[in-house]
């Protein structure tokens, strides 16, 4: 393979790995969006919290990250329940902006809390499956990136199946579209929503653990993630799972490739420019979804 092509292939591979990380954040965002129609701006901060949970657990239990994964997910699921009680339940009969602001506020509170508890400096979480590189022919991929790619694939498919093929998923989508009618048809809407917050938080826990190893965790690391995830959901089609994943991968590929040939600053500027352009040309995103509302 010629050198330029090889460089390009490596850039694409790195971009995909990072895009998978963004996609995992977007998945949790879409889950809550599908369940409640609510925009959960704290999803990134929940990922951050999951990262710190992983750091704390790894301090106490020096075992591979894979073994800590279920613990982090369970702890975060519990937090998700608390989160829905604080940020969603009190505002469910108010206009959506209330819920949105509540998630922003709670997210900021989490950032400040973690800053007070752990400080602003980055901390490294446990590696999922050891450290080091895996060679794919002439290309290299870190074990951490491979883990993120696999997790994105696995969790993405699992969530697609859950939302699209199960009774739980059907009911969740129905509840989001018309909670009043869903209730009158015997669907336990509140419980479904609580469960979806738990699932989204457990997902955030998994993502937090996965990212805390290779990319570290800081109290503000969720902010960078939610911004990318939000853009991914917006360009992917509001609420579309497939769109969110494709959107996230595109964002990261775009960033990696532009940064590889122009500059990193140009990549960020070009990304936002491209997003603006896309939303002008195709306002409903790449995969228009049933949820017409945007926030």
């Amino acid at each position, binding site marked *: 393979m010629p050198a330029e092509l090889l460089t390009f292939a490596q*850039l694409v591979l790195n971009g995909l790995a990072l895009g998978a990380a963004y996609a995992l954040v977007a998945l949790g965002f879409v889950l809550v969006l599908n369940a409640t129609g609510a925009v959960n701006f704290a999803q990134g901060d929940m990922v951050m919290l999951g990262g710190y949970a992983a750091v704390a657990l790894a301090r106490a239990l020096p075992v591979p990250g894979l073994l800590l994964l279920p613990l982090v997910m369970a702890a975060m699921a519990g937090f998700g329940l608390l989160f829905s009680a604080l940020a969603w339940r009190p505002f469910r009969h108010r206009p959506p902006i209330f819920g949105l602001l509540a998630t922003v506020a709670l997210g900021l509170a989490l950032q400040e809390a973690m800053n007070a508890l752990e400080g602003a400096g980055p901390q490294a979480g446990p590696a999922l499956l050891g450290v080091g590189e895996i060679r794919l022919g002439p290309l290299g991929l870190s074990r951490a990136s491979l883990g993120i790619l696999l997790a994105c694939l696995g969790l993405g498919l699992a969530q697609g199946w859950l939302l699209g093929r199960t009774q739980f998923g059907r009911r969740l989508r129905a509840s989001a579209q018309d909670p009043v009618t869903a209730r009158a048809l015997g669907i336990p809407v509140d419980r479904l929503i609580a469960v979806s917050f738990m699932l989204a938080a457990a997902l955030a826990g998994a993502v937090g653990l996965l990212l805390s190893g290779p990319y570290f965790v800081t109290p503000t690391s969720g902010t960078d993630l939610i911004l990318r995830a939000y853009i991914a959901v917006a360009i992917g089609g509001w609420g579309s799972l497939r769109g969110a994943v494709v959107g996230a991968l595109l964002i990261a590929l775009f960033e990696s490739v532009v940064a*590889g040939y122009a500059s990193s600053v140009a990549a960020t500027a070009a990304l936002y420019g491209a997003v603006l352009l896309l939303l002008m040309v195709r306002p409903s995103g790449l995969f228009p979804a049933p949820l017409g509302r945007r926030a």
Partner: protein
Amino acid sequence: MRLFAVLLLTLVATKALAEPVRLPILVPVTGFLSLEGTSQRNGALLALKQAPPGLATGEVSDTATAPENAVNALLRVLDQGPVPAIVAPMLGTQMLALMPTAVEEKLALLTVSGTASLTERGNPWVFRFFPSDRLAKEAHVRYAVEQLGKRKLALIYQTTAYGQSGASYIAASAKRHGAELLFSEGIDTDVKDLAPILGRAAASGADVLLFHLHAGSTALAVRQVAALGITLPVIAGSALHQPATAALLEPMELKGVCAESGSSPVSGGSPRLDRFLAEYRQAFGADPDAYALAQYDATQMLLDILARGARTGEQVRAALAQGQWDGVAMHYASDGRGDMAHSALILCYDGLTRVPRIVQRYDGLDAG
């Protein structure tokens, strides 16, 4: 009657001397500089703890990140009465915001901020106990050019105020020393994949890689250099010397990497330094960095001045400006503009531990 007045005056004066001096410690304990701000606070508190009893009491206020937070914190301090000096935040923008108030209220600002321009504004109340970025970057470049013999430099810097000013000092310093800056590019703090920029830096024909980045980006860059198999020597900025930054990386990933810093307390080296290290660890349960040590030295110098009877801002300012201090990290004396520190170190990691070795010391950096 006259006797009574003299008595009263003496009483007031003794009381004033007997009352501990308030030493406000205005540092960013939260926000993006909280790690460094906490070091500042700890250094100051440790010095206070070791001071003669009743000399001074510390009052810690968090300045977080916004300049107005620092100003408000200072105004709240001054509501309780005047103070001769404060431990001032290491965040450059907060320092700039505090400087006019310091002039008005006549109080000395003791900081460890690296922002070079602080001492270039003719403000007589600023005292910096840390090598300014201008000096630090001089050491950074001189090590590459003089010790490693590299003349083709590649620089990756952060697109923050800290990063951009550092980049301009590196460029100027490279020019002075006859080195060529073949590659120079900024990255945002939220960039996680540095492979593209590292790849281009390595392909630029440079023979040494300089980083001037914050802690998180520094660790990511060092890690990805190792992962990508880039063999160019790496000299990082002072962020890497912080024990918390090195802790993010495997010792293996640090092998051969060097960094610039004002000091490296964890590396030890002198009995005074070892004692400071032990006392700091005991008091705070953490490893000190160069900021902690610099603020410790600064606070000790201030406490010494207070112990000699200085009470007003003007007295303290004069003593700081004219005095000298043999600190734990280095020898401090003002250059006439408030820059007290004139030395910097280069540290390198051997790949076996996270404690760096001091490989080069530059003194009198601003002499030339």
